[in-house]
């Protein structure tokens, strides 16, 4: 078996006396589509934050593309190909939509060894990404002028601009309408076709089920299930955890 | 090292620390609990000093009694300042940069106004207890320090009781962490913050009065307290009154010992050293997790 792209090994995280993550193991192979679900407060976002370096885990380790991530701060992990989107979109409000996407191009792609991004190249790349998420008509606008779903798309496009190997999409669809959810799922599938491994953290089961090849369930900081989606949702413990809340 | 000197330095430091606790109480509420970085607080304290001075010199009122008389006025002033701050910055979530500049402007303007009215000469008050002291063996308690310390501790205890025992007090403690929960309980977070900020400014009235009992003041004295009160507030763990008290006593003793053994002109550097050290090593404060 080949070494997985991402390996999370016995990861634990506490906040004071509260155990947010308890010995979590997770392995994701190149090109996979993984869904991560769990009730509110189960530690999903904490796991994302620990993988991306926003938070530091006390014990356990994160290995990505064969390299230990522990001790690297968030931007160093982004530069190595680990990108994320935020649960609540956090665009740079003082910049135009296009400039929002330019930031990772300038700081991630250009900073990677062997890459030099000229201005024309960066402009072209920006427009390409904006076309992909159908925001090209609003390139010069402020993020303030965007709708909720457009804001989510900008968030994903910005994560994509870092040219990641792995994308962690943290609740990209919360609060969106039926067709908008479908829109985002299609977008993520297209990204996956381009060879990007994706972990989708989501509450909307319809979206998770249609997207994921594998489902991971987190409850109270522990992983209670990991396997084929249709099998996992029949699991007694999983049903119990969801009905019990 | 002279033991008597050390004992009296520590006593003076503890008395001073009690006073520092009163000075910092306001900041502990506004900065620690409400997340409002009111760097103009020392200017309000100085305002309290000068009002106590005016009432003392003009009508012969005891400075501490004067400060209690002025509590409602300072409360109203605090409510007004918070309203301006809320309408101009907090409502739009722009409090960081501009809010800081706003309070800095307030600090400066208050200082200049005091300067224009009272000039650059040192001003002091008269009261029966200034000048005499209480001696127990080798220990000496100057009343000029003892009375303010007792008043400060009384105020501090009242605040602690108010915050931990009353509904509004507990709402104040909760307001910065969970405004939504307050809303669900039909409590308007803005109103709670206004009350709390007004109280924090009201403490400045008393802190100002005891400041002028302890030492003569000039308008620029407030600036010396900026580093000190933030050092205490951070060291005490933001927003914890017991932590604030411990930190204040500690800083008082360290400063007093420094000034007895190395000279008073070094004392201001102590607080900054402690502030930087705390920020670098233990930003959650002494009692923090």
């Amino acid at each position, binding site marked *: 078996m080949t070494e997985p792209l991402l390996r999370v090994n016995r990861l634990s995280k506490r906040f004071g006396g509260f155990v947010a993550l308890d010995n979590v193991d997770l392995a994701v192979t190149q090109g996979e589509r993984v869904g991560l679900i769990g009730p509110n407060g189960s530690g999903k976002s904490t796991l994302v934050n620990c993988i*991306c*370096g*926003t938070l530091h885990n006390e014990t356990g380790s994160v290995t990505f593309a064969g390299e230990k991530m522990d001790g690297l*701060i*968030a*931007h160093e992990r*982004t*530069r190595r190909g680990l990108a*994320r989107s*935020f649960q609540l979109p*956090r*665009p*740079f*409000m*003082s*910049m135009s939509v296009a*400039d929002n996407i*330019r*930031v*990772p191009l*300038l*700081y991630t792609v*250009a900073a990677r060894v062997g890459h030099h991004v000229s201005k024309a190249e960066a402009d072209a790349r920006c427009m390409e990404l904006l076309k992909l998420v159908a925001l090209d008509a609003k390139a010069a606008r402020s993020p303030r002028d965007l709708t909720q779903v457009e804001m989510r798309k900008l968030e994903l496009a*910005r*994560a994509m601009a*870092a040219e990641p190997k792995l994308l962690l999409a943290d609740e990209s669809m919360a609060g969106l309408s039926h067709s908008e959810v479908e829109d985002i799922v299609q977008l993520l599938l297209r990204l996956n076709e381009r060879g990007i491994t994706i972990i989708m953290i989501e509450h909307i089961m319809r979206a998770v089920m249609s997207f994921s090849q594998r489902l991971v369930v987190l409850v109270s900081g522990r992983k209670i299930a990991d396997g084929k989606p249709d099998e996992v949702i029949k699991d007694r413990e999983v049903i119990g955890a969801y009905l019990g809340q | 090292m002279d033991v008597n000197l050390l004992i009296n330095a520590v006593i003076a430091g503890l008395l001073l620390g009690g006073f520092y606790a009163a000075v910092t109480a306001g900041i502990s509420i506004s900065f620690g609990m409400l997340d409002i*970085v009111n*760097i103009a607080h020392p200017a309000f304290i100085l305002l309290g000093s000068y009002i106590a001075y005016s009432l003392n010199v003009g009508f012969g009122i005891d400075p501490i009694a004067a400060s209690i008389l002025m509590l409602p006025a300072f409360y109203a002033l605090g409510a007004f300042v918070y309203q*301006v701050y809320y309408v*101009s910055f907090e409502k739009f979530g722009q409090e*960081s*940069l*501009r809010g*800081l*500049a*706003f309070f*800095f*402007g307030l600090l*400066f*303007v208050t200082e*200049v*106004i005091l*300067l*224009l009215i009272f000039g650059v000469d040192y001003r002091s008050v008269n009261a029966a207890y200034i000048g005499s002291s209480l001696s127990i063996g080798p220990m000496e308690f100057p009343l000029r320090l003892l009375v303010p310390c007792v008043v400060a501790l009384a105020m501090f205890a009242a605040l602690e009781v108010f915050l931990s025992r009353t509904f509004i007090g507990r709402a104040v403690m909760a307001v910065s962490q969970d405004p939504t929960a307050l809303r669900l309980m039909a409590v308007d977070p803005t109103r709670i913050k206004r009350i709390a900020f007004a109280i924090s400014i009201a403490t400045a009235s008393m802190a100002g009065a005891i400041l002028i009992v302890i030492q003569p003041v000039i308008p620029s004295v407030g*600036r010396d307290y*900026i*580093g000190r009160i*933030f*050092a205490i507030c*951070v060291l005490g763990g933001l927003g914890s009154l017991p932590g604030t008290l411990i930190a204040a006593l500690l800083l008082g003793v360290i400063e007093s010992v420094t000034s007895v053994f190395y000279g008073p002109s*070094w004392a*201001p*550097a102590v*607080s*900054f050293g402690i*502030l*930087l050290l705390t*920020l*670098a090593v233990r*930003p959650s404060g002494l009692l923090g997790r």
Partner: protein
Amino acid sequence: MRTPVFVLLEIVAGAALFLILRAVNNDYLFFAGYTVLQFIVLSTAWNILGGYCGYVNFGSAGFFALGVYTSVFLYTVNQNLEELMPESLLPLMQAIFPLPLPVLILLGGIVAGLVGLGTGYLTLRLRGVFFAIATLALAVVLQTFVVNWSFVGGSRGAYVIPPSTVPVLGPYIQYLFLLMLLLVILSVTCARLIERSRLGYGFATIRDDELAAEACGVPTLRLKLIATVLSGALMGMAGAPFPYYIGYVEPGSAFDLSYAVNSIAMPMIGGTTWWAGPMLGAVLLGTLQQIATVTISSAVNLLIVGLLLIGFVIAAPDGIVGLWHTWTSRRSKA
């Protein structure tokens, strides 16, 4: 506009200003002009950290004074070379000293930049407001050190006697004016370069959202340190010639709170997002204060600055530049 062209234009404008003042031939104009130029440097420097990154520095007076006292220190060393230096080093030192003013400016910048680095390193990893508080206290403590340091005059202050004339230019104040003009060109060019470079984007992401910035690969701590060092160094450089301008320095004048207030008020009033904003604010406020100091009193003019600062942050958050943008866009719509 390309940077070399811009610098050329700045030099032309600076030279024109200098020649006009020289033609008027009134030393007072040079004295007043120097102060205004000094404020342009201070406010532009403040804005690199405050306006671009959103980190408030209340300690401008401290950084300025570091430059001032670097000069005072080296001036005093030069006065006492025979006593301070071992015999073996004396000839060498006599050849080096007295250091020319441009070298003092450079050294003042280095000292202030290093202090900025230290303060930044200790506090910039925390919430932004801790940095602001630390800078506020920094000025008080640096002043404590200077007051206790008798070598540079302690609380009594120190006299620095500048030569009355320099070759070619004539009056010494014109030389000082010219140096400050160069510092203005340096700082404004710096600010404008940052605005148009990758660094400018990085700074803006820090101001907008640091967490998102890190997720986009922006090394926020390093960028903040760059801004702190640059900003502090420029302030120190602005302070270095001050002893030669004023002739007598005491801690109260070098650490004057009005430097801190002005370097915040000027960018806030001019506009923080454009390189010309701080300059605009400095020219307006600086000139106003020069006039007010002569006609009314210096305390009253500080009151005006404070009230203007409060008024602008409440009513016109984007400063004069922002007001101008709103006005022109309204006109174009009408």
